[in-house]
């Protein structure tokens, strides 16, 4: 097919809607919005084939700021809405912008099931460990003991680890990044977009109003090398400012070791995001500060058929074997009789 139309190369600007962005000044959401707009032109997906879906919360304002199709829906239900869109039009690229309350509290059930079905959507979980839009109550990812308006004596809830939840729900793509390291953020977003199936990305996002500095340990220039570990597929797990520390497995338990003195790189745990069993990814999702450096990057990326592809195949197979159903046949099926 010859196409003479000159395809215009899109730029980040083309993805901006005419609406003013209304997040608080200094919010981490701005950085995520900017990086999404930056990577979209790399994907060669036309504007009209993109849909951003969200629930309720600060992060859920996201669709209004994108010059694509979008639905700002109701609290927690974005995965259901997105699944419906993919059922109607499987070739659309669908993104979900959600927060820790939206995805893991009110929408926990829908999150699990969208992930287990492997619907081809990209889920961006803006984790700021607080309820921002309702002005500062503790969230399902807030640390125990968190003092907020609704927990003046400290929260007695144990927090969820979003990535452990996603891996437990059979996620095929799981990653973590944060709002400060924009290069890392953009790389992870691009990989999530290119993955076929549900991509689940936890983004550490600073809420400078209600939970400021929540991730400073992981993003601070001086601390990040010791508090985080960058995952690289096929590479040994090394971290530290001087890259002199590593993660080694002791039985089923990871431990931090100092390289040298007989400890070689080959003794360390090697990251493998493609291993079919999710055990390694799960183990990594259980490493958190201050006991361990927190892994950032892609934990898991495996290929499974998507929900909509399998449904489409069933329809195709059935049309092939029975022929495409006609209205006549539909109405006259089963036992009929003629009254004369």
């Amino acid at each position: 097919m010859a196409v003479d139309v000159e395809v215009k190369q899109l730029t980040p600007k083309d993805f901006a809607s005419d609406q003013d962005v209304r997040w608080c000044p200094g919010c981490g959401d701005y950085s995520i919005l900017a990086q999404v707009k930056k990577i979209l032109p790399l994907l060669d997906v036309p504007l009209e084939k993109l849909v951003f879906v969200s629930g309720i919360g600060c992060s859920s304002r996201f669709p209004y700021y994108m010059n694509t199709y979008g639905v700002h829906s109701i609290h927690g239900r974005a995965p259901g809405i997105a699944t419906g869109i993919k059922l109607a039009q499987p070739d659309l690229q669908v993104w979900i912008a959600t927060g820790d309350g939206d995805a893991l509290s009110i929408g926990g059930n829908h999150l699990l099931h969208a992930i287990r079905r492997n619907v081809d959507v990209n889920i961006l979980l803006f984790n700021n460990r607080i309820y921002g839009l309702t002005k500062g109550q503790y969230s399902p990812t807030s640390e125990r003991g968190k003092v907020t308006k609704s927990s003046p004596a400290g929260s007695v809830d144990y927090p969820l680890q979003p990535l452990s939840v996603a891996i437990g729900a059979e996620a095929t793509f799981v990653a973590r990044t944060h709002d400060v390291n924009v290069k890392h953020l953009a790389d992870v977003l691009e990989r999530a977009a290119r993955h076929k199936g549900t991509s689940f990305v936890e983004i550490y996002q600073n809420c400078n109003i209600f939970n400021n500095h929540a991730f400073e340990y992981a993003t601070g220039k001086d601390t990040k090398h010791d508090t985080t570990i960058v995952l690289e597929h096929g590479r040994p797990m090394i971290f530290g400012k001087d890259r002199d520390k590593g993660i080694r497995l002791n039985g089923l338990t990871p431990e931090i070791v100092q390289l040298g003195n007989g400890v070689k790189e080959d003794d360390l745990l090697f990251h493998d995001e493609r291993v079919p069993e999710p055990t390694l990814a799960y183990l990594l999702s259980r490493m958190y500060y201050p006991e361990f450096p927190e892994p950032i990057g892609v934990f898991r990326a495996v290929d499974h058929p998507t929900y909509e592809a399998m449904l489409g195949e069933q329809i195709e197979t059935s049309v092939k074997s029975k022929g495409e159903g006609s209205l006549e046949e539909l109405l006259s099926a089963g036992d009929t009789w003629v009254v004369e």
Partner: protein
Amino acid sequence: MAAPTATPTAKPTEIIDNITVRFAGDSGDGMQLAGMQLTNTSAIFGNDIATLPDFPAEIRAPAGSLAGVSGYQIHFSEQRIHTPGDGCDALVAMNPAALKTNLDELAIGGTLIVNEDAFNKGNLAKAGYENDPLADGSMGRYRLLKVKIDQLTTEAAQDTGLTNKAVLRTKNFFALGLIYWMYGRPMDPTLGWIESKFKSVPAVAEANTKALKAGYFYGETTEDFAVRYEVRKASIPPGKYRKVTGNEAVALGLVAASKLAEKTLVYASYPITPASDILHELARFTHYGVKTFQAEDEIAAMAAVVGAAFGGALAATGTSGPGLALKSEAIGLGVMTELPMVVVNVQRGGPSTGLPTKTEQADLLQALWGRNGECPVAVIAARSPSDCFDMTLEAFRIATHFMTPVILLSDGYLANGAEPWKVPAISALPDMHVGHPKGNGDEFKPYARDENLRRPWAVPGTPGLQHRIGGLEKANIDGNVSHDPVNHEEMVRLRERKIAGIADSIPEQEVEGDLGGDLLVVGWGSTYGAIVTAVEHANAKGNRVACAHIRYLNPFPKNLGDVLRSHKKVLIPEMNRGQLLIKIRAEYLVDAIGYHKVQGRPFRIAEIEQRIDEVLKG
């Protein structure tokens, strides 16, 4: 298949114009199957039919217990009929529990066939009988026929190589055979069904065949059965017919709408009694391109419907009362985003889990008003199993022409009840095509409206029409988020006027009987059959009674007020505590009288007839 004729007999035959038979037994006894076979056979034979399955909520309650009794009533007639019959003329009771729970339904002097073998000490105790009712004379008001069904079935089918237990499983067909003989029903349709159903297990096919025939010939030979009855073919308009239940008709209507609109049907649902059969039916229709989605819960199903509608599909869900409650927030999103979608609510007894397998009409106010904010949707109701097909098409016509969620009310009685349905000619079906805007370079206004106040249905994938919608209030025309107070009031009124405007596109309220009479009986939903028959009976006694059965509940037909006001009195029978009554009184200031029944079962014709008499006298 050509209509078969009554089978010959050597015994005297009495011609009667209609008969109602009820099968009752343990839920594992195959009573539903026996009932369905009698239904199919009678329909194919050419009678008019109406059925009422009556099953327990428990899948398999303890054998012989009262809770485990499953029943199936079928009414067949040479006249047009509208209900499965008030009581039954013949009751087949497979055990004492079935007798105890169903005897009230049997007419005095009716035929009572019992499986004598099941009336042992243990079963009698489980049913709470201190004495054997077959022996203590308490059945004297009925024509009692004691049949050793277990023993006769075993003798008939024991040489098929099956275990005794498996042989006994065919006793429902022995009972069916006996009923076939009693009413001159042809065995061929059921023999054909057995052959195709058990093709891969010839021994089971043989056992069922032998049991059916043994029951039939037992009737012919034993002296207990002196007379047989014959119900002649009904005079039914010519055409091709099939039997449908309400749930089947909804499923057919959904697929037909999708074919007529040339759009993909997305049906997202969570299993719930009594709506699940719609999902089951549709899941078989993959070769029609139907996409069914069994969601993780009711809320997700509704969310997926909103998403699929945004994506340009014909989107529908089915549920029952508790599910409708869970869906209400997402239906509100459908109202705010003004997308077309259909919610089928197959009502059951409430509140809460209520009576899942029993029928009720107590969700009308939930459908009308059960959402936060001023949140109007179109509400329509089917009045018979086959009407579910027409009203499903109507639901999608309204949804797409007015860009709105539509709630279609059915109930457990319509869902599981069956009647003959004249297969419609394709040419007689409505045009369901819907247009979508294409980008023309101008700025797109997602909340601009046409003369129906309908906003454009722009679907993702259309270049130049990218837009964002959501649950926040919209600015009129441009569709951006707006917190402006005046705009909000304008939008609330616009949404209200849009739904009210549907009245211009629906038929006027029909009245059966004379306008201006002494009494108008107003109903909605599945009570149609009982009401219309009761009104016929009342008029046969020389009264001037009319009935108006409302299929469009929001908005009402435009002439409804005039219809109501042109009768001296208005009576509204409902299977609830007066929900339509509230709406009619509020909207038209008509002093209507309510008549309520909330027993999880439909009105009897006689109950409504009696109430009509009382109201006319009072």
